[in-house]
Structures are given as structure tokens and as C-alpha cells.
């Protein structure tokens, strides 16, 4: 309750500094990180952090200030700075606190089992990930294997009387392995995540890293072609992250989304179903309330091939005459709330990977993309990104390929999804996304 108290004091200070309304978001966390290289602990950290961000309104103008001092003087200074910053902003008639606040019931955010994991035990886990990666045949080196976790609390208070807090735990591990040598060296990554270290399968994470590198050894540049493409879950998730960003009502209202004005339109093949779910108990970005104290929820985005709607916070909802979907997102106390996805969830289909590959016939299985942040135009949706993967020949995986690009535009890609895989998994790429592999019936592949 200490955090909630700090948030309340900040709100009182902002009101005392002349704010017409105000809100404070406070965080406190401890985190550990173990990095293993060559079977030894390369670095080990144990860290604590805390901070608070204050949003102060001067009518319909809003200012923000954040800092690491949670003392009375510290929060009072921030509250004054936020109120002063508001003077710089222009009027925005839709700006303000949400009209209603509250919390959803999201069970299981904090694992009781977390406390059983001493630093010695998580070091063992990281070493086990590393061992598993190194024991995959053809793996020549493991660049690093990393375990990290966080246990934290968040509190929000505002001048309309809302005050709430919650705690959450999260653990991750990943490994990056090399297979092959010299000019044939290829890399692969394995990842896993859960609410506590017990949910991480060290063996599976390490093996995945090694296997993903191993299957690309000997990759060559393919010929250019247009062909069916199977995106693996990592890659599909990265693309869905871009789609999710463009379904933000903020992007739509500012004319930065190709989905603007297309609510109800056909934007995808019906096999592709996409939702944003801030209440999924397994979701890394799940929480009872969003970054401005609105209850989180599940928002269907694409169903039956049609665009159902957008993601809103209270400001964009007021502007559109809609209700907020609980998507006011905060990276941390250092940023004011803005519209963002929580957990994007792509519904799984019937086919295992083998079936998708068989259905592709002749094409490409993409296991890696690079340069997404520079290769996707968020406004037009056209993209051309670097990729590596395995050619599909006669419905089976063939030889590995690299130094190629895949190009299309996002809507064409969504419309030409012809099958969705059954193996759905959480992926920390493109935000927090739960996705299966996806078969796209045609994309431009550029090689030599």
C-alpha cells in the first residue's frame, strides 16, 4: 500500500499546485538477470527500481513529469513540474481523465511459486538452457543464454478518487546458438516465458535455439520468385505486432493507419482471427486496469475476415464517440499513457506445421526476419524485409536459404492467409503476441 500512498500524495500535490485534474502511476520492482556464456556465469544482477509519473491537467491541456524520488518532496516537485508542463501544451477538447475507472478480475498475475526460486536456482536454470543448446548436434557455439525475471507492483491514483494497485511476476529465458562455421555459420534463438521460473522448460528453450540454427546451416541465396510462404510463429507474431499498432485508434485518428475508415470492411481471409486481450491469465501484458485506470478487457479485432474495430483509450474514445477498450498503455512510469496493444492473440487453426508445409506445395518457410522496423511502412503497410528460412519443395522442407527479402503489403498479406497453424505460442516479438505459424498463399521473394 506504500505505492498507492505515494500515488495519492502525488495527486494531492498536483491538485495543490493548481491542476484541474491529475493522476499518478507508481512502480516498484526487483529484477534478476543471469547471462551464461561457455557454460559459466558471465554476469549476474540483482536490482531494485522504483519511480512515479504524474499527469496533470490544466483544463484540457495535459503535462507529464516523472522521477525516481518517492519522498514527499520528490513527488511534490514532480507534481509541480507536470502542472507547469501542461502550460506548454495546446488545448485538446478530448483530453482528460477517463469517465469511469475500475479493475477487471485477472487471476494469476503473480505466482506464489516465484518466491521458491533462489538466485542459485535460477542460475542453475540458465546453465541448463545453455547446456541444452550446446548439446544440439552441429551447434558450434552458444553466444549466450539469458534468464531474467521481475517481481513488481504498480499503483494508480487519480483526482476523481480512484486508487488501486496490483502485483505481477514474470520470468523469461532465451538462448542464441550458432551452428556451422565460417561463411556457413547461422544463428538461432529459443525463447520461453512464464509467471515463474518453474514454467520455463530449460531443455526446450536451449534445444529450440540449437535446432533453429542447425536447420539453416548451408543456406544459400535463392532465386527470386512469387510463391506461397509459411511464416513460423516468431515471424507471424512480428507481423501481427505491426497490424496491432495500426489498429490503434490514435494511429487511425491521426491519419497514420491504412485501416482508417475501414471498420466492417473485409481486410483478411476468414481463417485469420485476431483479438487484443488484456485479461488473458498467461499474457505478459495482462493487468486488471490499464495505464489510466480503466478496466482491461478482450477486444475482437478481425473476425470472419472483417475489421471489427479499433483499440481506444479514453481520449481517442471521446473523439470517436465510442467507449474506451482499456488500451491506455504505459511503457513504464517514464511515459504518459497512450493507445497500445496489450496481448495480441491470433486464434489457432487445425493444421500442424507439417500440414501447412504440405499445403504450400512449392514455396518458402520463413524462420527469421530482419529489419522490420525499417522495412515496414506503417502508413501504407507496404513492406520488404530481410529473411532466412527453408525452401518448400513438393510439400516438404528442402534446403535452407538466406540473404533474401520477402515483400508484400499488410492487407494483401492478411487477405491471402490461406491456413493458420494449430501450434499457438507466446512470443515476445512485436510486443506481446500469442501466434501460430501462418500460410500466406503468395508473396514476392527476392534473391538473386
Amino acid at each position, binding site marked *: 500500500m506504500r505505492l498507492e500512498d505515494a500515488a495519492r500524495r502525488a495527486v494531492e500535490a498536483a491538485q495543490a499546485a493548481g491542476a484541474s485534474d491529475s493522476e499518478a502511476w507508481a512502480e516498484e520492482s526487483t529484477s534478476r538477470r543471469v547471462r551464461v556464456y561457455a557454460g559459466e556465469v558471465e554476469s549476474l544482477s540483482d536490482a531494485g527500481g522504483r519511480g512515479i509519473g504524474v499527469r496533470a491537467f490544466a483544463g484540457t491541456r495535459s503535462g507529464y513529469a516523472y522521477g525516481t524520488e518517492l519522498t514527499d518532496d520528490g513527488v511534490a516537485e514532480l507534481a509541480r513540474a507536470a502542472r507547469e508542463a501542461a502550460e506548454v*501544451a495546446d488545448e485538446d477538447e478530448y483530453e482528460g481523465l477517463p469517465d469511469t475507472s475500475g479493475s477487471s478480475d485477472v487471476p494469476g498475475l503473480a505466482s506464489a511459486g516465484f518466491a521458491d526460486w533462489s538466485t542459485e536456482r535460477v542460475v542453475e536454470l540458465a546453465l541448463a538452457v545453455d547446456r541444452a543448446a550446446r548439446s544440439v548436434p552441429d551447434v558450434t557455439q552458444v553466444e549466450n543464454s539469458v534468464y531474467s525475471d521481475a517481481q513488481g507492483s504498480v499503483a494508480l491514483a487519480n483526482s476523481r478518487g480512484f486508487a488501486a494497485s496490483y502485483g505481477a511476476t514474470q520470468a523469461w529465458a532465451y538462448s542464441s546458438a*550458432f551452428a556451422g562455421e565460417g561463411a556457413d555459420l547461422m544463428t538461432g534463438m529459443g525463447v520461453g516465458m512464464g509467471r515463474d521460473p518453474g514454467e520455463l522448460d530449460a531443455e526446450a528453450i536451449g534445444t529450440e535455439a540449437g535446432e533453429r540454427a542447425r536447420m539453416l546451416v548451408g543456406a544459400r541465396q535463392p532465386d527470386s520468385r512469387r510463391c506461397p510462404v509459411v511464416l513460423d510463429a516468431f515471424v507471424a507474431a512480428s507481423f501481427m505486432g505491426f497490424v496491432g499498432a495500426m489498429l490503434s485508434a490514435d494511429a487511425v485518428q491521426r491519419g497514420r493507419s491504412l485501416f482508417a475508415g475501414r471498420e466492417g470492411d473485409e481486410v483478411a481471409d476468414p481463417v485469420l482471427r485476431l483479438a487484443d486481450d488484456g485479461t488473458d491469465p498467461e499474457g505478459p501484458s495482462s493487468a486488471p486496469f490499464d495505464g489510466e485506470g480503466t478496466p482491461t478487457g478482450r477486444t475482437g479485432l478481425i473476425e470472419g475476415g472483417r475489421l471489427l474495430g479499433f483499440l481506444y483509450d479514453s481520449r481517442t474514445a471521446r473523439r470517436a464517440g465510442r467507449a474506451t477498450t482499456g488500451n491506455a498503455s504505459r511503457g513504464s512510469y517514464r511515459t504518459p499513457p497512450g493507445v497500445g496493444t496489450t496481448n495480441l492473440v491470433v486464434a489457432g487453426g487445425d493444421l500442424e506445421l507439417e500440414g501447412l508445409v504440405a499445403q504450400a506445395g512449392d514455396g518458402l518457410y520463413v524462420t527469421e526476419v530482419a529489419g522490420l522496423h525499417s522495412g515496414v511502412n506503417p502508413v501504407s503497410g507496404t513492406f520488404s524485409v530481410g529473411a532466412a528460412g527453408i525452401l518448400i519443395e513438393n510439400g516438404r522442407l528442402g534446403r535452407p536459404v538466406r540473404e533474401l527479402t520477402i515483400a508484400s503489403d499488410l492487407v494483401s498479406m492478411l487477405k491471402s492467409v490461406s491456413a493458420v497453424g494449430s501450434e499457438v505460442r507466446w512470443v515476445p516479438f512485436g510486443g506481446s503476441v500469442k501466434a501460430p505459424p501462418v500460410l500466406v498463399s503468395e508473396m514476392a521473394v527476392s534473391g538473386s
Partner: protein
Amino acid sequence: MTLVDPELAARVLERALARGGDMAELYAESRRGFGVSLDDGRVERPQGGRERGACVRVVQGDSTYYGHVDGLAEEDLLRVAGSVSEGVRGDARRPAALAAIATGARHEVAVPPEEVAAARKADLLRACDERARAAGPEVAQARIGYAESHRQVEIFGSDGRVAADDRTRIRLSAQVVARRDGRVETGTDTRGGHAGWELLEDDPEQVADEAARRALTLLDAVDAPTGRLPVVVGNGFGGVLLHEAVGHGLEADAVQKQASVYAGRLGEQLAPSFVTAYDDGSRPNAWGSEGVDDEGTPTRRTTVIEDGRLTSYLYDLLSSRKDGVESTGNGRRESFRHLPVPRMTNTFFAPGEATPEELIAGVERGLYAVSFGGGQVEPATGDFVFGVSEGYLIENGRVTAPVRGATLVGNGIEALRALDGIAGDLEIATGYCGKGGQTVPAGVGQPHVRIRELTVGGTAS
């Protein structure tokens, strides 16, 4: 010292070495920032921040134990030093007496940004917005961003090293969206440096002009060609190619793990003899410059490629110790919440003799990549990918139609070998570089260069 009293620092180091270790270090930091943006014609999101904190690390052999804490209170610093020491297995060691403060290159700040009224910064955004919209009726939207930061850092090492640095950075950016019929294109530009408000006193609205020009140009763009083509890369932000395709592979941590294609290749002729490249963290007021790095080593100019030969890697303290060389002043961290790792500062090709026109004139059919939206490399393989944000076709030695959607893919070693011309118009641009979850400001730059052949991934069939 303004952040941590040296007497307290000495006690923190002593506690950190309570159970042994080859080296202990206290890194203290105070950072203030202010930013405001304009979007959709409206000044919004004014925000300020103030953070203070410290990181303590102990190195023993190849292992590093560290912890960080928000705030600089005595009891917190001593507590984190104690908890870090618990990871170490050995006998207590005494730190050396602390020496005098090292500061390194100075980067003059004439007008500290915090002394300029916030209202003036908002007015600058409005002026940029006006300039962008004045570029033509097809300009649909402009987003202008202003950010300033002021970081003070202090570093105390158990080897007696004491260093301090005071870093002011300022950056103005513009993103302009142009629309014609159903077509939407975006252009961007930035101006920034390790400098004060004076950097924005000379017609800063040019940033908006340039972003608008790029967006409008792209409205006429044709689909990018596909295949292997000669490529002329523009100066300034075109240097992201060197940064990605070569620079990351020269960072000593990747080299020592054999996770770089440049490992074991010092002294090798990797590029034609007219190619020289530097990493220079001491370049006055450049975006990636500092006085000392985040381990207290004064920044300097390191020649990484000389007359085509690979001459040096980029080192922090740990990696330099392993190779028995001096740190090159490339130990950088995003903040007190991170460990220092070898990172580039300002990395650029030295100017050559040609002119951009000559480079272009020598191409029968190719791509002129003026600027990139960004790029990515896998240092272990050298494979890179770049998104071209402004590009043109070159036909019969002349720049013709703008193209959109071009991506360059290739391999650093091959691209270096294929360099076949360097112009004299060196320029350094402001980038942000991400590595291992840490983002730091990095200057990227070059004069115009020509590469004999690269794979261009386009959308044209």
C-alpha cells in the same frame, strides 16, 4: 564531485570487494530530460523527467556481478554493494586510493537547453509545422519532436580511477506524411548533437522542409527494382550501412566470442586501399560523442580501417583486458540500469577524392540510396538488411525516378570488398543504436560511396 562524495565511493568499493573480485566500480548518474511534440497541428505531450541512480559491479575472472538502485542515498549504495559482493567467492581485497578526476574531451554547450523557456520550444515546433505544410497542398500531416537531455555521470574504480562527464544532447525531428489519391508516403529528417540550444538557432525549420521534400518526392515513386545492382549510398545517414555492416562486428565482445565475421582478421585487407574508417567519440559536439565513456576512459578517434586494412576493434575495459590492449573508450551504457558493453560512438568513412556526381555517372543501371529508414545486422554472419527511405533509379549515369519499398540485403565482408568509390562530402547524422536491450545515441556518417553490387529487394515484379 557533485553526485557521490569520494569518501562514500571509497567505502562502497571496499564493501563491493568484501568477498574478493578483480575489479569493482561505482557508476553514479543524474539525468534530466524534457521533451515535447507537435502532432496533427497541436502541441502535446510536454514531459520532463529526473532520475538519479547508481550501478555497482564486481568483476572476477570472466564473471561480472552487478546491481543497480534508484536514488543515490548512502544506505542504498552500501546495500547494493553488499548484495553484489555476495555473488563473489574469495577473500576481501582493498581498493586502491582514488586518484584525481579525469574528464576527457570537452563538448562546449553555449546555451544549456534547460535555460530556454519551454514556450520557445513549443513555438519552434509550430514553426516547423508551418514550414512542412507550406511545402505543398499534398502535405497531410506533420509530427515534430523536440528532446533534450542532460546527464551527469561519475565513475569510481577500485583501480583508483575517478572520472566525471557532463553530457547535454538536443534533437529536433520531423516526420511528414504526404497524400495523393490513395497513396500515402512518409519523409523524415533530424538535427541533433552533443550540444545546446545553439544547434537549433540557425534555421532549424530546414528539418521540416527536408522531411516534407522527401515525403512529396515519394508520391511520384515507382516500385523498387529487384535483383543485384550497383548502389550509390548517400552521405550522412547513409553511414548506417557502415555502422551495421561493419561496425557491430568490430565491437570486441562479439569478436572475442567468435560471434563476428571480423574475428581473427586484424591486418587483413578487407576493402580497397582507398577506404579508411573511424570510430570517433571525441569529435567535437557530434551526436555520439562524450568526454569520457561510461567506464571513465577518455573518448578518442580509433582508426578501424586504414587504407583498406582492418586495424582495430572497439574495446571497453573488460574486453581490452582480455586482448592485452588499452580500452578505446567505447564502454557505453544506456543508463545506470545497464552494464557497459563495447559500443560505437560516431562511426564514419573518411572522405575520398570523388564527387557524388562522378560516382553516379559511372553507373549504367542501379540504385541511388540517399537515406535509410534503419537497418539490422547479424554480427556473427555479417548478413545485413537496410530499408531505403529515399531512393532513386540510376539510368545511364543519371538519377531518374524515385523508388519506394527498396530493401538492401547483403553481407558486410562482401560489401566492403565491393566498395568502388568514395566522395569527399562527409556528414554525420543522429542515430539511435540498439544492442542487448540497450539504446544509446550513435553518430552515423559517411561521404557518398558506391558499391559495385548489392541485392536489392523490391516490390516490382
